[in-house]
Structures are given as structure tokens and as C-alpha cells.
């Protein structure tokens, strides 16, 4: 709209589905003729709630029916709460897409190791979708998902289908469980023992809390995956998403335009420095 990267394009909430107590998945369709460019796995949009504000949210699924957008939003603050309370038919402002993609389309015949923590599964879901659509391009495919509690599990229908799909190895663990839980308990990095991959031919994507990603990366490296085959998705405060507001800096990088998806080799000098 009017050529300024500050101006959102208006989208209508066309459907909402509840993932768990505080997570919803939205489908959005443009109100008018104007739509943002097609979005790719790993990219994010700025979503605006009328009169409240704007937050960065990763794309959580890529439908063949462009320009429909899919975003999963967790109720963690003022804007996200306003967004998830919007009824179907209401309007959300959208700016984007921003940031580089997970390099999944560039990968040929590699084994894949995805490690997700909590809502970190959302930005990785389009990667899983892409892999399943192009399964012949990949070797072994592993998805390791850790979440706090069985109640926090999201994308139930997808997970059931991934778990029953022999072409991917989907593993799930929780930090704490109720007595009837029959699955894994413990941190997500422990699941790496259940993954099948040839380290020297493996690419790994991680998304989750920073501490989880840090230990996830160590686990990948300990398993023999090479540093330059590890990617992670960072989270920082973002106001503009276009590299002009300064909020999202990590060392020399702007998380909004240099990331949010970073090769580990870029983040390596900064991940262990506290409060950077």
C-alpha cells in the first residue's frame, strides 16, 4: 500500500482453530486485490491488531491456495491476546514477508534433523510440509519435538499423521507428564538417540527457546553434524521488521533481516554471551 514498508495490507480472518489452551491457528485472506508476496518456510509477517499494535509471527503452514496465510499465535502479551480474540471475519493488518527461509528447498538428498521446542514447532511445520511434498529429495527425515506438558502439544492432527507416516521419524517428549502419559519424558536433546541420520550428510534446523537451541546445537555437533549444516531461528523484540528500528540486534546482526533463520556459523560467537 502506497509503497511504504510501514503500511500493512488488510487481511480477513477466514478461519480459526484452537491448538491448545493459549494457541490458535489463523487462516487469513486478503480483503482487497492487494496481497503480500508469497511467503516461504522460516519467514515471518508483522501482524497488526486494530488500535493495539503489531507483532512478528512466523508462517506456520504454506497452503497451495496463495494468497491465504496461516499463522499460529500464542497468547503471551497485549497484541497476541487481541489477535487471538478476533472473531472470524475481522481484519488483521499484515506486513511481510520478512527474513530468509529455512534452506529446505536447496537441500538435495540429505538426511534431515529438525529439533523443535514448544511453539518452535510452528515455524518448522512448513518445512515438514515441504519435505513430505518432496519426499524423494531427502534421505532420512527426523523431527524431534519437546514440549512442557502433554497439554501443550499442538497440531494434534498433523502429529498423529506424522507419527503414523513411515517416511518420517517423528519423536515427541515432554518435560512433565501426567501418570497416564506413555511417551518420552525429558529434554528434547535426549531424543537425538532415537534419530536416524548419517551425520556427515545431515542438515539440522532448530527452533525453540534459546537455551534449548544452544543444547540442541551441541547435541547435533556431538553427533557429528558439521557446523555449517546447522540452522536456528532467533527471537527478538521487533518493531519494524525492516532493519530500521534497531530493536532486534544480536551482535552485528538484525534478527529481522539477517534472520530470524540464521546459519549457526553466524550466531556461534554470540550465543553464549549473556544479555547480548
Amino acid at each position, binding site marked *: 500500500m502506497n*509503497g511504504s514498508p510501514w503500511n500493512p495490507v488488510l487481511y480477513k480472518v477466514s478461519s480459526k482453530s484452537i491448538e491448545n489452551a493459549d494457541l490458535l491457528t489463523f487462516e487469513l485472506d486478503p480483503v482487497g486485490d492487494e496481497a503480500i508476496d508469497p511467503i516461504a518456510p522460516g519467514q515471518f509477517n508483522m501482524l497488526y491488531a486494530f488500535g493495539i499494535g503489531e507483532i512478528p509471527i512466523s508462517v506456520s503452514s504454506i497452503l497451495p491456495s496463495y494468497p491465504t496465510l496461516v499463522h499460529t499465535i500464542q497468547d503471551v502479551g497485549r497484541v*497476541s491476546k487481541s489477535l487471538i480474540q478476533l472473531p472470524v471475519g475481522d481484519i488483521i493488518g499484515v506486513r511481510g514477508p520478512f527474513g530468509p527461509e529455512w534452506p529446505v528447498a536447496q537441500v538435495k538428498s540429505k538426511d534431515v534433523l529438525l529439533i523443535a521446542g514448544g511453539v518452535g514447532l510452528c515455524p518448522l511445520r512448513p518445512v515438514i510440509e515441504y519435505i513430505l511434498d518432496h519426499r524423494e529429495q531427502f534421505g532420512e527425515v527426523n523431527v524431534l519435538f519437546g514440549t512442557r506438558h502433554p497439554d501443550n502439544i499442538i497440531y494434534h492432527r498433523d502429529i498423529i499423521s506424522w507419527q503414523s507416516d513411515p517416511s518420517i521419524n517423528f519423536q515427541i517428549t515432554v518435560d512433565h507428564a501426567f501418570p497416564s502419559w506413555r511417551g518420552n519424558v525429558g*529434554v528434547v536433546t535426549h531424543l537425538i538417540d532415537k534419530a536416524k541420520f548419517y551425520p556427515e550428510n545431515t542438515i539440522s534446523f532448530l527452533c525453540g527457546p534459546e537455551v534449548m537451541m544452544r543444547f540442541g546445537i551441541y547435541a547435533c555437533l556431538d553427533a557429528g553434524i558439521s557446523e555449517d549444516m546447522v540452522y536456528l531461528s532467533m527471537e*527478538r523484540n521487533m*518493531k519494524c521488521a525492516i532493519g530500521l528500528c*534497531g530493536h532486534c540486534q544480536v551482535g552485528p546482526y538484525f534478527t529481522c533481516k539477517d534472520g530470524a533463520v540464521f546459519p549457526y556459523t553466524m550466531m556461534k560467537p554470540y550465543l553464549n*554471551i549473556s544479555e547480548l
Partner: protein
Amino acid sequence: MRSKDRPRYVLTVDHLRGLFDELSDQGYEQVGPIFRDGAIMLEKINSFDELTLGYLEQQDKGSYNLDQHPDAGYFQYSVGPQSFKKFLNPPRRKLWEANGSSSNFEITVPERPAKMVFWGVRNCDIEAIRILDKVFLEGAYVNDWYQAAKEDLLIIAVGCTHPSKNCFCTSFDSGPMPYEGYDLSLVEVKDGAGHHFIADGKSDLIKHWLNDTEAQLASKDDLEIASRTIEEAIDNMPIRLNPKEASELLKTNLEHSHWEQVASRCLSCANCTLVCPTCFCSTTEDITDISGDHTERWLTWDSCFVGDFSYIHGGQIRPSTRSRYRQWMTHKLSNWYDQFGSSGCVGCGRCITWCPVGIDITEELAAINDNPVGPAKDKKSRGNEKHKGST
């Protein structure tokens, strides 16, 4: 035509007054240094005679004083608390407004900025504008307001003849004499013999005007006096830092104990970032009127010293003053090179003058330089850290 081949003219105060009026007639908004609230501020002015006349200044760490002096001219001080960024990237501006409700709203965008003239721009501030160009115009996304403000901008620069004690522009490639990035540059000469300006006109508009003034060409003596005043200014500014070395030094000293030491003095007040001519961080504010059907989105200056600057759900990334000062200084002197290919500091000294506790960025750098810890250790030996949970 190269700068040194252009003719220099001798302009009087009346010439400049005439230029001011002519530019007003052409519809320019004019901005220049005026005296207000005990300081030299940059404001919109309606007449040439609103410009400061007869002030000398004294700056020191955390201190700024102006004295009236009958022999002082219009520009014989260094820089006040403000820089021209406030006109190119205003402290508060409306990005857009929306009318309706969450079920149906429309967005409208405000008008572009007026065309402007900046009077009395020092080379440090020209350098700062060049740096902001890289930030706002040369990346993947453009600050459209800044771009529009720059399009018709006229810069009337002055050679800085009276640098303050806190100035260190000579530590960078720039120095006190503007060499590009202006339309007209002036060196003010005020002595017993009179009051005039040695002028170099660069843009066509100014060259035509200079031609029409029938001003005298500067003599060899005039030029010599002008260059001597600039040389004296250079001599009065010791080299305080080596920008390239500083950039490398800070990269390997992110965990230096000195950050804690600075933090024990720093109030995290954000003054340094507000007075800095290149600090560009901003935030957005959404303001809705009481009816709830009109909302405005504003862009306002922000600072990496402010508590919620780094806030994400769950807390701040940089809760401590130590981490905020480190962010500011490493951004200015080191990360800026990686991001924009230049220093983020121009040596104007404003952050030193306007720091309420007199923290001097060059001294803090020197303290780290005197006792560097070297490359940060790779903590792959992760004994101190406990992995508590996956989420």
C-alpha cells in the same frame, strides 16, 4: 568541477540575509541554530536574524555553558544538544492512521515533509547524515520520510572554527571542514577588520545565487585566513581513538570486566542516544481515541538504554545497565561497520557533554584497550550451565 578548482567568494551578513529571504520565497522551511533554554538549539526559523549571534561556549564532560561575547559571530561554537536528525527522522511522526474497527478499517497515510534548508551544519553532522543515508536509504528497505526530506534538502555548512573540549572529529576521516555533502559552505571570519564568510557554492542553485550577488572573489589572503582558522581548530582536537582498531578490540571484549565498571556510573538515562546524531533506533506507538474507531500509529525515537527496548515475552534480553552500555558502545564503534560499512560515531562529543555523570566514550574505550581480555572464550565446555527444560 572539483572542490579546489571552484572559486571562493567573500560574503557579508547581508548576502546571507538575502539568501535566507530568497529561499523563503521559494517555499523552503528553514532550520538553524538559535539560542533557547540556555543552549544552542536547532529550530525552524522565519528570519535570518533569529540565528544565534554573539555566543561562545564551553563544554566539558557532563557540562555545557554559553557566554555572550561581543566579538563572537554566528557559528563560533561547536554543537549543541540537538542534531539535524530531528528534522530528517523526527522524534515523533505519524506513520499512518486508521478509521473503523477491527471488523473493518481503512488506513490513510499523512503528507510528506516540506522542503528544508539546514543552516550552520558542521562537518560532523554532514558525516552523520551520510551515515544515516546508509542506514535509511541504502538497505533493502527505505525510510520513506527520510528519503522525502532528503530529496529537496539544502545544506548550508560551516567550517567548524571553535571545536569544544569534547570534540574528536579528527579521530575519523572527517575533520572540522566540510568537503562534500553540502550546497554552500561557509567559513566565518570575524575580527577587528570586519565580519564576513568565505563561501564555496557547490549546487547549481547556490552557484547561480552566488553569481547574482556579485560578491567579491576571495583573495589569497582571505583563503589563507580561512584555512588557518580551520587548521587551528584541528590542532585543538587531539586524536582520541582509532576507529578501525576500536572496532576489532570491542569484538573480542564483550565479556570485559570494564562493562561492569561503566555500569556502576551509567544511569541508563538514554541522553547519549538522544543527542547522538546517528542513533536511529525507534519504536512504534498505537494511540486510539476514546471512541475506539480512530487509531494512529506513531514512530518515536527509542533508545537501547530503555528497559523495554529488548523486551520479549518473558522478560528483557538486556536487563542490566552493563549490557545496555555494551550494546550502545559496541554498536556505535564496532557493529556499525558490519552493518553499514562505516563507524556509527562521528566524534561530535555530544554524548560526553550531555551525559549527566560525564561518561566519556573515548575514555571507556581506552580503559578496555589498556587491558584487553582478548578473544572471548568458546564456552563449549558448558559446565556452568544446566539444561533445565526444553521449552
